[in-house]
C-alpha cells in the first residue's frame, strides 16, 4: 500500500497530466514513476528493518 502522501501526490499529478500537452505529460508521468519507486524502496527498507529487529538471532546480542 502506498504511503498516504505519495498516494496523494500521484493523484494530484494525474489531474495535472490531463490538463497539459505531450511533453509535459511525459515529465509528469516520469515524476509519478519516480515517486512510486521511492515509495516501494521505503516500504521494502522499513520491512527489512522490522524483520531484522524482530529476528531471534538478534535477541541475544
Amino acid at each position, binding site marked *: 500500500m502506498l504511503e498516504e502522501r*505519495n498516494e496523494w501526490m500521484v493523484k*494530484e499529478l494525474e489531474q495535472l497530466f490531463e490538463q497539459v500537452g505531450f511533453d509535459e505529460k*511525459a*515529465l509528469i508521468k*516520469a515524476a509519478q514513476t519516480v515517486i512510486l519507486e521511492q515509495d516501494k524502496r521505503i516500504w521494502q*527498507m522499513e520491512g*527489512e*528493518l522490522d524483520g*531484522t529487529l524482530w529476528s531471534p538471532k538478534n535477541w541475544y546480542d
Partner: protein
Amino acid sequence: MKTLLIISHPSILESSSQQFLLSAVPQTEQVTVNHLEAAYPDGKIDVEREQQLLKDNDRVIFQFPFYWYSSPAFLKQWQDEVLTEGFAHGGAQGELAGKEFGLIFMLGVHEREYQAGGRELYTISELTKPFQAMAHKTGMVYLKPLTVFQFAYMTDEEKMDLFIEYQRMLTNKNDDSLASKEKWIVNQLRLLKSADIDEAGENIINHAVELIEENRMNINELTKVIEEMY
C-alpha cells in the same frame, strides 16, 4: 556536460520516429545536433569542423536507423574520414579519450527476435560490436544504447517513456540509479514552463519536487540505519 548528437538518416523528414526524437531534443546549449545528410548534402564532409565538434563535447551520440545491422553508409563514411589516426587514435592518447560514446537507433523488428532462437539470431550487444570496438580504440566510455523497437506500434505511454529516456541519455550523467533519476526529474520539473500550467498546477509541481527530495532523505536515512545493523 555537453553532448554532440550526430544523426545519420537519408530521409529524416519522412521518418516519424526521427521527427519524434527531434521534437524531444532539449532546447539547451548543452546539446548540439549535427544531422550529417543535412550538413553535407553533396557528401563532402568537413573533417576539421567535425573534429572540432568532437573536441568541444563530452558525450558523443550516434543516432540512426539500423540498416543491415549497422548504420546508414554516410555515418560509416564519417567514421572513416573523421576518426583519423593522430586525432582519434594512435600514438599517445587521442582527442576522444575519456569522453562518453552512445548509440540511439531504431529497429523495425520486435526486441524478442534479437537473441539466440529469435529470427535475427544475434543480440544487440553482439551486432553493435564494431561501435563498441571504436569506442574502445578511441578511449571512450561506451554507454548502454537506447534502442527503439517498432516505433510505429508504440502506445502513447510508451512514447512518453521514450521521450524522457531520450532526454536523459542526452543530458544526464551516466548513472542509472534511482537517486540520479530523481535528481534529473527534479531539475526538469523546476525548469518546466508551460502555458497549460496555472498557479494551482505550479503548486502541484512544487509539492512534487519537495516530496521527491523528502523521500530521498528518508531513503538515505533508512539505508544508513540498515547498513549500521550489519
